[in-house]
Structures are given as C-alpha cells and as structure tokens.
C-alpha cells in the first residue's frame, strides 16, 4: 500500500467535466433524429425492393386486357400468330413458346457440358498461374454486350453456317465424338474383358477394341456424311441462336459451378485421394455429387440468361413464328418471346391499348413468371446446398459458416448477370 502512497503524488488526471447524460429534450431530439434517419434509409431501401413489385404490377395491368378480351385458350394452344391482321387478328403464341424453349434447350446443351468441364478444370486441374489467365476470359465473355453477340451471329456466323454449314457440322462431329468414342471403347473393352482369365485377357481386349473401333468409325462416317450433305437454307436459325446463346450463358455456368466445386472443400478431395482414387474418379464420384446443387443453380441461372436474352435471338434466330418441321429441326428459323416483343412492339400502336399492344405484355408476363420461378428455384437450391454443407461441417464453427455464405453471395451476384 505504501507503493501507492508514493505514486499518488504524480497523479494529475485532467477531468473533462460536462455531464454524461443528456437533458430530456436533447435525448428526445437525439432519438427523433436517429429514427428519422433510419426511416429515410428504410424508405429508400424499400423503394429499391418496391421496384420489382411495380414491375409485376405494371406488366400484369397491361396484360390483363388481353386475357380479358381474348381468353387464355388461343394464346397458349394455337400456333397462328397474326396480330397485325386488322380484320381477324390471331394471337396463338404456342410456336413462340416452342421457339423459346428450343433455343434455350439448345443453349443449355452447348453450355452445360462445356461450362461444367471448364469449371472442373478451373477448380481441380489448372495450376493457379494458369487460372489467373483463364478467369479474365470468362469475365470478358460475360462483359460483352448481347447486341455484339447478336451482330456476330448475324454478320459472321450466319453466312458461315449458310455457306459451309454441312461441312462444319461434320467436322464438329468428328472433333466431338471421335475422342469420346475412343475413350468409351477403351473403357468398354477393359470392363468386358476384366473377368477373363489372365491368359486370354490381352488378346480378347485387343479384339474387342478393334471391333468397336471399326463400328465407331463406320457410325461416325455415316453420320458425318449425312451432316455434310445437309444444305442450310438460312444461316439465321435455331442452331445459330442456340450456339451463340450457349456461349453467352457459359460464363454464368462456369463461375457458379466453379464456386460450388471449390466450396466442396479440400478435406473431401483429400479423403478421396487417400483411398487411392484418381483425380477423375474423385471429381466424378465425390466432388461433382457434393457440388451438384451448386451446379444445378448454375444451370438454372444459365437457363434464365438464355430465356431472357433479347438481341441475340432477335438477330440470329430467323424470327419465323412456326414450329419447325420436324419438331427437332434446329436448322429452321424460329421465333422467341423476347424477339416477338421487340419486333411487334415497333408495329403496335404504343398508347392506344389495342390487343396487339396488350398481347406483348401478356408475353412479358410469361417471361416474368418464368424468371421469377427460376429465381426462386435457384435460391432454394443454393439454400439447400448451404444447409447440406453446414450439416457436413457441423454448425457453429465460424469458418465453416462463412464459406457457404460467401458462396451464396457469389451466386446471388450471378443472378444479376
């Protein structure tokens, strides 16, 4: 205690003085100001959110007169689209829905295998230094405006398809199916002869391989010959639109899938490698299943991008409101909902509120509903992933919780395009 006695001499605290409590009026004012500030912020924040409700309201408002006057049946079941026929307009949008579906399916067929393979490569194969170079490619693909893709489709790609379409298709067949067939042959031969006794195994395998190779070559040859003979009468068709839309959807799919694959974590991979699995086996049997919901979300977002895209389909799809003959004929021109809105709105008298005007809002409403549902679906899928991942990791750990959250935010960012 004496120690304190000694030091007490140098104590010289400067007291600030002044009361720590506010008077009643100052206190009220402080609360009022805080509340007001908060309310203003809330108002602005909610008006950002209100915007989407406004969009729904105004699209529905202008769509209702159409359904009121024309009912639902013709719109959804007929393929006769002649809205500008003054005497007897026809509003059968089935072919247009079909066209949208067709190019979307085409785009997904192009983008999903390519995108997921690229994502796997980015997350599991490429070294960091190469990845740094590939990522900007994805970003640039995502940044290029859709009208530029459309221009490319119309001015560069369509003439190419029209002039050299058949040959291009047959070359593509060889490039695509050749390696795949080779791989399949190897696996089939190995599996089918695996049970044989040691002595017969190698000759048997060689025999099977030769047989299969011959069969595959013959098949490919026929296929490519058939394709090469195809004459494409117009370069602007469903195939063109599908390929370009696929390339456009690629960045979304690559980025979201890659995030999902990365989020699967190192422990999972190491566990699999420790059991002696190869990289391909690890990827196929462990990582992709673990990331499947994320990849699902990626596909949904890719679909959304393809359905909602306007300029590319307007410029590349040929704009013929018809169901192709036969139904799977990707070489015939089709018409999509977005393209219809653009090209028919120009003709419709924008303010008089004719059926021609309202039918386009009906179509926009369909688009809106589809994108809303897809959005909900992707959110649901992502939420399930998060739940799954945190269940695997055990809840509570700060790190375990933060990773899926970051992943979810990234996914959310991709919804925006």
């Amino acid at each position: 205690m004496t120690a304190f006695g000694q030091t007490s001499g140098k104590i010289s605290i400067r007291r600030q003085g002044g009361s720590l409590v506010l008077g009643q009026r100052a206190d009220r004012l402080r609360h009022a100001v805080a509340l007001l500030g908060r309310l203003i912020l809330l108002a602005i924040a909610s008006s950002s959110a209100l915007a989407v409700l406004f969009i729904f309201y105004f699209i529905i408002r202008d769509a209702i007169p159409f359904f009121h006057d024309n009912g639902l049946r013709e719109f959804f079941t007929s393929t006769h689209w002649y809205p500008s026929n003054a005497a007897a307009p026809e509003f059968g949008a089935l072919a247009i829905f079909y066209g949208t579906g067709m190019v979307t399916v085409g785009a997904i067929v192009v983008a999903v295998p390519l995108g997921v393979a690229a994502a796997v490569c980015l997350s599991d194969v490429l070294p960091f230094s190469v990845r740094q170079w590939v990522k900007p490619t994805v970003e640039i693909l995502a940044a290029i405006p859709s009208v530029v893709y459309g221009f490319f489709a119309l001015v560069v790609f369509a003439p190419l398809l029209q002039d050299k379409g058949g040959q291009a298709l047959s070359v593509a067949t060889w490039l695509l199916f050749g390696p795949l067939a080779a791989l399949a042959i190897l696996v089939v031969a190995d599996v089918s002869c695996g049970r044989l006794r040691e002595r017969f195994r190698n000759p048997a395998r060689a025999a099977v391989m030769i047989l299969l190779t011959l069969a595959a070559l013959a098949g490919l040859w026929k296929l490519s010959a058939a394709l090469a003979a195809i004459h494409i009468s117009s370069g602007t068709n469903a195939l063109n639109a599908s390929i370009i839309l696929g390339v456009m959807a690629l960045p979304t799919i690559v980025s979201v899938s890659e995030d999902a694959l990365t989020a699967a974590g190192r422990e999972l991979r190491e566990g699999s490698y420790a059991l002696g699995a190869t990289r391909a086996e690890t990827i196929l049997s462990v990582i992709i299943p673990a990331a499947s919901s994320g990849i699902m979300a990626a596909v949904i977002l890719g679909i959304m991008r393809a359905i909602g895209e306007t300029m590319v389909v307007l410029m590349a799809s040929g704009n013929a409101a018809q169901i192709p003959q036969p139904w799977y004929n990707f070489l015939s021109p089709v018409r999509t909902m977005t393209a219809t809105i653009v090209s028919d709105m120009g003709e419709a008298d924008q303010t008089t509120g004719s059926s021609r005007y309202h039918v386009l809002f009906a179509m926009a409403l369909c688009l809106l509903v589809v994108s809303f549902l897809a959005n909900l679906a992707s959110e649901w899928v992502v939420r399930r992933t998060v739940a799954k991942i945190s269940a695997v990791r055990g809840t509570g750990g700060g790190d375990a919780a933060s990773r899926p959250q970051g992943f979810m935010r990234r996914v959310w960012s991709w919804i925006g395009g």
Partner: protein
Amino acid sequence: MHLRTRKIIDRSATGIGILAIVVMTAALVVLLAPIFANGTGAFVFRGTAEFRKYQSDRFDRGDREVLTTEKETLRQVRQPVYDLLHKFEHQLKNDDDLDARFGAEFPKLKREVYRLIGPPPGEALSRLERDEYGATRWDRALVQADSIVHVQEDRGLDSHGFSLKVEGPRAARYKGTSLEPMFGYVEMHLAELLRPQWTFYPQFLIDNPQDANFFGGIGPAVLGTIYLTLGAILFAVPMGVITAIYLVEYAGQGRFISLLRTCISTLAGVPSIVFGLFGLAFFINTIHVSPSKSVLAGSLTLGLLILPTIIRASEEALRAVPLAYKEAALSLGAGQWRTILTVILPAALPGILTGIIISMGRAAGETAPIIFTAAVSVGLGVKPWEVFTSPTQALSWNIYNVSTEHEAVDQIRHVQYGMVLTLVVLVLALNLTAVLLRARITRRLSG
C-alpha cells in the same frame, strides 16, 4: 478396372477439361477477332479522293490548296469516263436498236459508275449524298468497280434447285459499242481515278452520320450511350449504395429484411426486355416523365436494371470493411452516421466503385431496355438540356438497326463494325478499369 485404364480415363478427363477451356477461349477469340480486325477499318482505312472531298465540303477539313490541285488532276483522269458515258447515252437516244438492248440497263450502270468516281460537277443524279460523291473508301471502291466491270448472268438452276449465277466481264456485253473502252479504262486506272491514301479518321467517333450512315461517323450514338450510362448511374448509385448501407448497417435478420432481399434478387433476374416494357408502361405512359421516348426515361429504366448489381457490389464492399475500423471510430466518440461517412464508406469506396464501373459497362451495352424508352435510329446528337424530352441514338440500338434494318446493310459494314468496336472497347475498358481497381484495393488492404 485395370489401373492402366483408370489412368487413361483420368488423363482423358483432364483432357476434356482443358479442351473445354480451350474451346471457351477460342470462342472469345473468334468473337473478338473479326470485330477488332474490321472495326479498326472504320478509323484507319484507305480513303479515296472522294473521302477527302467530302470531308472538305462537309466538315471543312483538309488542306484546300492540295485538294484543289487534286481535284484538277482527278478531273483530267475522270473526264474520259464521263465522255464515254455521255457519248453512249447520246447514241442510245438516237438508236432504237441500241436502246432496246441497253435502255434498261444503262441508267443503272451510269449510276454505279457515278457512285464509284463521283458524278461530273453539277450532274448528280439525286440530292442524296451517295449520288453526289463517289466511293469514299478504297475497299468499297474495289467492290463497286468489280460490279461495274463484271456482270452476273443467270444460268438457270443448279442441281439443288438453286439459281446458278456466273460472273462475266461486262465489256463483253458492250462489245462493239462506244462504251466498251470504258470498262478497260476504269479497271486500268482505278487507282488514279480515286487516289487512295491511308487515312486516319478519329472523327468517326464524333461526326454526325450523313445520308443514312453512308458518310460521316457515329457521334450521336456515342453521345447517347454516354448520356444513358451516366443517367443510369446517377439514378442507381445513390439508391443502390443507400440500400446497401441500410442492409449492412441497420437491418437485422427479420422477415421484412429477407423479403427485401428476395425482392432485390428477383429484380436482378427480370429479363431486360421486361424492363423495357415496364419503362414504357410506367415511366412514359403512366407517370409521363417525358411525352414519349427520352434519354431520361431510358436512363431510369437502365438505372433500375443495374440497381441490383450496385446494391450487391456495395453490400459486399461494405461487409468487407473490417469491424475494427468501425470499433475504432466508435471508441473515439463518432456517432453511427459519422462512422459510416468518415470511415466505412471511404474504406468500401474502391469496392463500390468497382461495382459501379462494371454496372456502367452493363448499362452501356444493354439494348432491350432502351428500345421502347429512349432509342431512335436517326437524329442529331442530343444537347445536354434536351435529355429530359428528347430521344437519342445509342450505340447498342444503332448496331442492331444499321445491321438489320438498313437499306444497304452490306455497303456500310465498316460503320457497323466501327460501332461494334467502339462499344466493345468502351465496355472492355470499363471492365479493365474495374479489374485494375480491384487489384489496387487488394494491394492497399495488404499494406
């Protein structure tokens, strides 16, 4: 399975992955290569004497004296062509037989020749500028000359049932007439007739288009894109950033907040064409921000489109600000607002800016939302005080327009490519800025 097979499968899988990356990169190259290769042609090309004459007449550019002497030289070289044409025309009038053979074709031929080397003074075939000047670009001139010197002749149908066309020299058709020498002359003296020179034409970016984009540049479209982008940013940034601040600094985890978030993410998923229709139905037809299409209505629509992106980027940037900064500021006696304004926002600024710049790229490139709200295909540059009422050209819409709805799409390819290149460079430059900015933030945060 055999270990060897497993290894082969493993390698093949790697191969497939790398193939996918290669295909993706190739797609990018294939997309951008023609755009860069042809797009630069709008700015750097071999301009003919007609180009220089046009620039001098219309924009008062170039050295008068040089041009006058060049004009004189050209007159001498071109005179024989004009003379031959006049002579033949005269003969046509007097010779019914000749008239029966060439009466229909000759006026077209004459027009094509005039479009190649320009009409003789005072003899323009119409008031259209394309009839007052010859070919301004050497690449166009070569195509034009070819269509004069050669002619396509129908040869019935080919084996597929498509009409078969064969090219032949036009001179052969005019064999024995007084016009025959003209074709040889044009072919031989094409360079002297047009005097091509390498030309750098940066004013392509600011000049008004003339005569349906046959001449001039893309000034109004560039200007319109800038207006629309800035307008969208002006509207979306304050709203987006404030919303993000609310979400990060004030909002908890309640029902209402999750509803708010769902709304915002739904907004992000709305197709861009629906934004366009909404802009038309709401901004123009309901609240009448302008009597019809205007820069303002387009900017508001685009602003709404990029709002979710800005909210998200700002939110992420704000969340990335270390809690320690906030604690430090509060422990020094700063209030919540003061903390946000003096510490949190400045620290999040680079991240927010990155988001803003990326959104700018998006707004600049979007077409569908402005079709019904702002874009027109013709018109002069909009003056800053006209933005509230006047519609505008915009690069994105004009690319569509001049490459699909133009009367002569394949004669103005250079304009189309020039526009596309301008838009691509604009968007990529914005994205590059964003990338560099992001790199700087990372560096700064690490000390």
